[in-house]
C-alpha cells in the first residue's frame, strides 16, 4: 500500500470529473452504467456512490453504516477487487480517471451494489461461530494471561468486522458454494483457542464436513485482501492442523 501523506488534490490532471461505471440490476441480471462524477478532494468510493444516488440517480442502491471501517457493510468490488468503500480513497484505485464499481462477489445481489449477506452469516453460525459459555453471569470473570500463546492465537483474528471481503476474494468459495469460507473458519479457529469456550470438540466436527476447512487451497486471497490485515489463511491452516491431529488421535472413523 502506498502511503498517502498529503492533502493535495486527488485528481491532478483529471479534468475535474471521474468516469464511474456502476453495476445496476437485481438477482435477475443487470449490467454496468456510466456516470460522470465531480472529482473532489478526500473522496472515497462510498462518497462517489453516494453522490450518484443523491444527485443523479435516486434509485441507486448501496449499503453503508459506520463510514469508518468498523461495521463492514459497505464492501463492493472496485475495479474487480473487493474493498471497503468507506475507507477506499478514490486516488488509490483510479485508473486513467476511471473506476468500476460492482456488488460484492460470491454473494447473491439484492439490488445494484447491495449484496445479500445472509449466506455469509449462515456459514458463520454453521462453522460453530457462536460462543458457548462455560460460566455464567454469577461467576467471577476468569483471569486470562494476555501473553499466553493460546490466547495470543485466539486474539489474532478477533478484530474481524465480518465485511465479507475475504469471502468475496476467495476462488474456492466461488467454485464451491458449500465452502464455509475464510471469515467463518477464522472465527471457528478463534473459538477453538478460547479457553472459555465450552464446545471445542463440536468446532472440529463443524469444520470437518463437506464444506469445511479442508476445502481451502491456501490461495491466500483472503489474507491479501482483508482490510484489517487479518490472516484467515493461517487460521484455517491451524484448523487443518488440529483436525489432522484429532484424526490420528481418534483413528479413522
Amino acid at each position, binding site marked *: 500500500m502506498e502511503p498517502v501523506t498529503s492533502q493535495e488534490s486527488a485528481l491532478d490532471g483529471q479534468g475535474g470529473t471521474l468516469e464511474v461505471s456502476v453495476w445496476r440490476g437485481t438477482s435477475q441480471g443487470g449490467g454496468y452504467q456510466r456516470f460522470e462524477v465531480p472529482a473532489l478532494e478526500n473522496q472515497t468510493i462510498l462518497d462517489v456512490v453516494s453522490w450518484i444516488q443523491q444527485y443523479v440517480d435516486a434509485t441507486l442502491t448501496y449499503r453503508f453504516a459506520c463510514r469508518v471501517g468498523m461495521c463492514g457493510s459497505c464492501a463492493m468490488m472496485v475495479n474487480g477487487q473487493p474493498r471497503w468503500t468507506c475507507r477506499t480513497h478514490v486516488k488509490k484505485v483510479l485508473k486513467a480517471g476511471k473506476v468500476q464499481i460492482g456488488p460484492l462477489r460470491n454473494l447473491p445481489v439484492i439490488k445494484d451494489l447491495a449484496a445479500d449477506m445472509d449466506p455469509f452469516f449462515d456459514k458463520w453460525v454453521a462453522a460453530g461461530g457462536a460462543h458457548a459459555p462455560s460460566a455464567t453471569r454469577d461467576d467471577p470473570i476468569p483471569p486470562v494471561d494476555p501473553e499466553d500463546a493460546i490466547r495470543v492465537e485466539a486474539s489474532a483474528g478477533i478484530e474481524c468486522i465480518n465485511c465479507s471481503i475475504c469471502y468475496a476474494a476467495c476462488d474456492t468459495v466461488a467454485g464451491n458454494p458449500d465452502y464455509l469460507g475464510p471469515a467463518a473458519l477464522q472465527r471457528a479457529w478463534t473459538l477453538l483457542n478460547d479457553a472459555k469456550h465450552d464446545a471445542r470438540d463440536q468446532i472440529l466436527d463443524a469444520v470437518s464436513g463437506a464444506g469445511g476447512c479442508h476445502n481451502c*487451497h*491456501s490461495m491466500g*486471497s483472503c489474507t491479501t485482501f482483508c482490510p484489517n490485515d487479518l490472516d484467515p*489463511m493461517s487460521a484455517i491452516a491451524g484448523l487443518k492442523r488440529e483436525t489432522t491431529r484429532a484424526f490420528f488421535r481418534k483413528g479413522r472413523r
Partner: protein
Amino acid sequence: MSYARAHPLWLAFVLHRVSGLALALFLPLHFWVLSLALTRPERLDQFLGFTEQPVVKLAEFGLIFLLAVHMFGGLRLMAMEWLPWSAPQKTLAAGAVGVAVLISGTFFLQVV
C-alpha cells in the same frame, strides 16, 4: 478480473492445480505405454524409439518437470498447513523450494 488475484500464493495455487491436472491427464498415457511392454513389446520399442525425437523428449521432460513442480508445491502446501511456522518462515521456505526446483530442474535437463 484475474489480475486482481495475481499475488504469489494464488499463482502458486494455479501452478499446483495446472500441474496436477496435467499429470492426471498424462499418467494414463504413461501407464498405457508401459503396459505395451507386456502386450506388444515391439510397439514399446517403436514407441521408445519415437521418444528419442527431440520434441517428444522435451515433452517427456516437461512432464517430469511438472511432477517436480507439483511435488514441491504439494510439500510446500502441507508444510503451510501443518507446520506452525510464522508467515515469513513459510515465505522463505516456499522461496527456497522454488529455487531448489529451478536448480534441480535445469540440472536435470542438462544431464539428459
